[in-house]
């Protein structure tokens, strides 16, 4: 936590933005591109400023992609967990995370923030794409790929956690795929006109959810995390396999690194802006 101010510092004296603009425009023609390392970042200027306020900087846009095959036939009727699908899901994430780690370390980053997690589950393969911004404390040395973190938290969330004394460790991921149990024809007929809980279905959902959450938790614990924030969950049947249920969860594993959690002490505000209102351009667009 080198440069940068502390929370609640008095606001800086306003910059004469007109003068700054003149200086910037003048410099454009005199100044040669700097010799310092050029960076690539998909952060907004707000995110970059807030990251800089705690002494971190973006350096490069990095990604990781992996596709892992699901052996044929695994979605057919069966019982219990569809282990090869659950395994393929885990492998695809491992592959993508491993690649983004390597890209990050190669670019000189200490971690990746704002990771966009795209996953798609097909009958025969599971694809995972991760895209984020490699960041590091300003001017810091390289670290090994094994020591970088990957987080789907935004640069803003990363900064707020950092200020409060927390550190992201990595993506905690878990998924479970199970077969929805088959009801015997006799049982189905019997239940047709009744209001009853379909206990075996309930159990299937439970078991998928439990194994996914359990896997996510244990991956967080392996990383040394004491919590997982912003957990996202998806569940439901897949359109290519209606008698199977998939449940997936992922989030960022975090750990308290300061001695104590530091309070942010927010101010309350009353905003006067609405979410975008006014002219709706799309109303004029064709079909």
């Amino acid at each position, binding site marked *: 936590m080198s440069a*940068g101010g502390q*929370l*609640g*510092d*008095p*606001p*800086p004296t306003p*910059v004469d*933005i*007109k003068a*700054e*603009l*003149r*200086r*910037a*425009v003048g*410099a454009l*023609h005199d*100044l*040669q*591109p*700097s010799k*310092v390392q*050029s*960076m*690539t*970042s*998909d952060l*907004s200027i*707000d995110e970059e400023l807030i990251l*800089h*306020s*705690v*002494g971190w900087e973006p350096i490069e*846009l990095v*990604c990781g*992609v*992996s596709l*892992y*095959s*699901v*052996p*044929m036939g695994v979605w057919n009727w069966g019982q219990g967990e569809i282990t*090869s699908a659950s*395994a*393929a899901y885990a*492998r*695809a994430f491992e*592959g993508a995370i491993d690649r983004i780690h390597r890209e990050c370390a190669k670019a000189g980053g200490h971690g990746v923030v704002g990771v966009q997690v795209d996953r798609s589950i097909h009958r*025969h*393969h599971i694809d995972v*794409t991760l895209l984020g911004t490699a960041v590091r404390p300003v001017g810091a040395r390289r670290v090994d790929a094994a020591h970088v973190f990957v987080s789907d938290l935004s640069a803003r969330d990363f900064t707020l956690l950092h*200020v409060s004394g927390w550190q992201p460790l990595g993506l905690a991921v878990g998924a479970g795929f199970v077969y929805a149990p088959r009801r015997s024809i006799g049982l189905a007929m019997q239940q047709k006109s009744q209001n009853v809980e379909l206990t075996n279905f309930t159990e299937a959902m439970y078991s998928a959810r439990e194994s996914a959450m359990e896997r996510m938790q244990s991956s967080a614990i392996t990383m040394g995390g004491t919590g997982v924030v912003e957990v996202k969950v998806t569940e439901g049947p897949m359109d290519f396999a209606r008698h199977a249920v998939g449940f997936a969860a992922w989030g960022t594993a975090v750990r308290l690194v300061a001695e104590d959690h530091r309070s942010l*002490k*927010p*101010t*309350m*505000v*009353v*905003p006067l802006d609405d979410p975008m209102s006014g002219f709706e351009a799309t109303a004029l667009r064709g079909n």
Partner: protein
Amino acid sequence: MTDTAPDLPEAANRRFASQAFTSGLTVPDFAACLQMGLEPVGYVQGFCVMQWGWYGLNSPYRRGISPYGGGQGGYMESWQCPHGFVSNEHRSWGQNYEQSWIEDAWGQGFGTAYSRMLEEAAAVGAHGVVGVVDTADRLGDLGVLEFHLRGTAVKVTDAPAPPGGQPWTTYLAGQRLAKLIEAGYMPVSVAAAVSSVRVWAYCMTEYLLGGTSSAWGMQPAGAEITQVASAQMAARQIAREHVRAQMAGDSLHGAEMVVSEHELSEGDQEIQCLLRGNRVRRFKDFDPMPVPHPTVRLS
């Protein structure tokens, strides 16, 4: 302002001759630009309509025409069938390669539209163009792609006429632009490039993607589909390299990456990656601001 630029349509010259400015900025962006000493002078645009097909002469789309050596770009990788079959139906070879003719055509379309926009900006005596929007849309069923760039040309209040060089351009406007300059970055230009990677699937890729046990008696177990993963990584890598080549030591700010896939048959596909952003140059050292004050909204 009164000189008519030769290549502009008559209507454009009439528009620029008017005393009133046109600005494509939203009101908050307009206000922020005035506040920082940028006056809008005109809404400027540039076009280029390109004939567009994925299967150029250099891009054979029938399997069997393109064996090894088909790539022209820098990236190429090949895969060999591990089974030892010889059959017309068995895809015994696989290849990924960069399709530089598509990348170049895209660059030509974007670049032409861009320089036409700059021509308009120069015609109204602008220092820069802010709030640039670019699109590359297919027009109906014409098999063409229209590159359209537009933005608001601005003058720096009370500044001398722009020097001979090109106006600077940026996707940003308003407060975001003000903050960028406050942070010590000056926009140089918008930057964009695409990469195009063609994937010719070999037997293993085909089986793994399609789950086909095939007539060859193989039951593919779970495995990573390395050929496609490799192409996906390469497409993103090449796009970043293309843009970096335009940077000449400057930085790319506010980048956006868009990836699209065109599937041609099982496993055979084109992966296209578009990367765009603002090329910016540091003109003063960064003076980090204090951590902003956290707020909670009371409504």
